[in-house]
């Protein structure tokens, strides 16, 4: 493959100069002149071991009696081979709200049911609410806004057995779980526990989707889920994925009938939009 260079280096102000910047803290004192010299030397040593050669310690500051903070600029020797970069490309097209609703009507002939929850000890509903609440996120309305999606938001700290039971009772097509808390990899173990519980509950399980800022989107198989969304995911991406995964493709003719944007049932009522705000 020809075209842009396949081997690149970081760019400071000149092509190929390899210059980067980093900051870190070392547990060393920065008090006496001798301590300062030793601290800066320690920072330079770390930079060298990280491949910054030469490195310049441009800032060092003692933080309390035992720690020093450094900012370092340097040149890295490493090369980046673009041909070795693998990217998980989105395997589904991004649809408008009208297209999502149309695909569900045509493909399912009923509403698509989504059950959402934060599981385990995670009480941070910010992520799941941003995807589900009408209010939405990043300028996009949440799944509750889509006429053909019925949303059941179970909220925070839902027990996995309750989630499985509720998903069954609601006839969930998809289960969305958000995990913000990551201490001791709780997000990983919680997601695995959920996937295991659904697997154990029978063959006809709903689509399992997890999301959270610290998930690796490539870990679906390891977690036993169908899809992982990372930081910055918007409701529209989730809706588009659900349609892609749960409904058959549309014949071209129908898809071409690009609808006007849907009327805005929520925003049309006085105060409705701002009320959504208070729920957070």
């Amino acid at each position: 493959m020809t075209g842009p260079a396949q081997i690149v280096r970081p760019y400071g102000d000149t092509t190929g100069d390899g210059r980067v910047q980093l900051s870190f803290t070392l547990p060393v004192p920065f008090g006496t002149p001798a301590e300062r010299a030793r601290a800066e030397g320690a920072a330079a040593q770390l930079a060298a071991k990280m491949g910054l050669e030469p490195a310049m310690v441009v800032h060092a500051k003692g933080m309390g009696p035992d720690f020093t903070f450094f900012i370092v600029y340097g040149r890295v020797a490493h090369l980046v081979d673009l041909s070795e970069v693998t990217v998980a490309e989105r395997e589904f097209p991004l649809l408008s709200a009208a297209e999502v609703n149309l695909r569900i009507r045509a493909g399912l002939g009923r509403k698509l049911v989504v059950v959402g929850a934060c599981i385990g000890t995670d009480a941070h509903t910010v992520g799941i609410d941003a995807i589900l609440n009408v209010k939405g996120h990043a300028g996009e309305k949440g799944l509750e806004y889509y006429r053909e999606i019925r949303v059941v938001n179970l909220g925070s700290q839902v027990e996995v057995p309750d989630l499985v039971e509720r998903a069954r009772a609601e006839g969930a097509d998809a289960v969305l779980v958000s995990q913000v808390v990551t201490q001791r990899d709780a997000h990983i173990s919680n997601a695995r526990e959920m996937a295991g519980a659904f697997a154990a509950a029978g063959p006809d399980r709903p689509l399992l989707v997890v999301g959270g800022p610290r998930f690796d989107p490539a870990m679906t198989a390891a977690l036993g889920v169908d899809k992982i969304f990372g930081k910055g995911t918007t409701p529209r991406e989730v809706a588009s994925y659900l349609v892609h995964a749960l409904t058959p493709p549309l014949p071209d003719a129908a898809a071409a009938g690009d609808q006007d944007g849907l009327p805005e049932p929520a925003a049309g009522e006085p105060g409705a939009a701002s009320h959504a705000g208070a729920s957070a």
Partner: protein
Amino acid sequence: METGSAVTRRLSLDPAVVAAARDLARRAGQPIVEMARTHTTVSVERAVLRLAGLQGADDDGMPWVNRLTDAVREATGLEHGVALPAWDALRAGGYADLAALARDAAAGRVKFRIPGGADARDARAAATAALARGIGRIDAQRAARDQMIAATSEPPKPWIYLIVATGDIQEDIPQAQAAAREGADIIAVIRSTGQSLLDYVPEGATREGFAGTYATQENFRLMRAALDDVSRELGRYVRLTNYASGLCMPEIASLAGLERLDMMLNDCMYGIIFRDINPRRTFIDQRFSRQIHARAGIIINTGEDNYLTTADAVDAAHTVVVSQLLNEYFGKEAGLADGQLGLGHAFEINPAVPDSFLLELAHAQLVRELFPAAPLKYMPPTKHMTGNVFAGYLLDAFFNLCGVMTDQSILLIGMMTEGIHTPFLSDRDLALENVRYVREAAGRLGESFRPVPGGFIDQRAGQVLGESVELLRRICDDGLLNAIADGTFGITRRPADGGRGLDGVIEQADGYFNPAADILERPQEPLPPPAASPAALSEIGAKP
């Protein structure tokens, strides 16, 4: 408690509209207060036992206050309160203390009853004496705080509020002390994220938590002692904050009073909306917990900033004001002084919105003028912290600037790595450097900050106030519980009979007896002025 300094008026708010807003908040809140006066909860009753000194837990870690309350509830119900049957059994069984009674009760060896006649009078007297001693300990801690402040110093406003959250109290302590040395005036220990929905308070010093450290009496005591040490070292009183919200609000409030915490997160609707805790349970627990805070001289922090973390900070600005007015009404009804109302708000407007900083100034100044004597707690940007730490550092500087220009009382320090990870040591250090620079460079800018009457900032503040009055009117018409059930505060519908903890709500019977509430409801005699005798001070600092 400070009475609040005079606040500079910078906006042309209509006093009649302000008065109407307060009146509507009172009307919306009154039926809730009536409900809270006529009901109790398992956690209120457990708080009574905690105030009477019952500590410790069984071998499974279940606190004795839970075991004893459950045993009484099973035998007699809690309609008369836990105190009457408990102190009756204490006397009848000749137990040395409540712990001994609780052990026997847990083993099913105690027959509880609702005593009558002289037995009832004796039980009441014994319980009242025990609670007077317990609340006396809270009074002593309040006096100790005053003495500590007199012996060290009161830091100037805005107070710098900083969070530690390692999960391990032994790690939290050096981090908190380091933060205080770097300039933090208030240390908040964030709780383990699971705790708000636990219907008991864990015991002892804890070293494991999820995204935070469990609130326990022993953790409270350890951290307060460590901050007393560093306060003396710095000659500046460093305050300690924790979280009362959740199913154990009254108990945690009691422990906070007993262990001299200085501020507590305590919001009137946060648990309902964000944690799906039953609305009735929340409001009943909240009232008792705020009575305790009032007595303890603790400043409450309310949670309005949360509304803006997913809501649009421009569209929902008035929901913040409405919630603040409700929090103010409920707080004052429970006995809190203006100087104890740390009403919350936040700097969360999308920086891409034109004039976003002017809008922030308008909102912050509006809140400042609506609540001139309240120690307002101003929260930094979180929602629009993108991972670009350099842009985030700039946004935090603007937040700090807005805070000093509008005389905010408490600044929670923003971290440039917000949303990326729990702060590094260096993140915290840089954040404090940021606020120090703004304070020193522009701390007096407020005296020259005069928005043009009828200009953009002035008009925007008036508009938000007007929208607040409109929303309060609707809430008054619906009733607050119905409004919450209908999703007025968001799409989250929270029916009065839904959510967690409703099974712990009990309607009071005639003759309901709560000796703690009786003492707290009595108008308080003025506390003796703080006398900073050296002997008393060494007492405060003494570690058991």
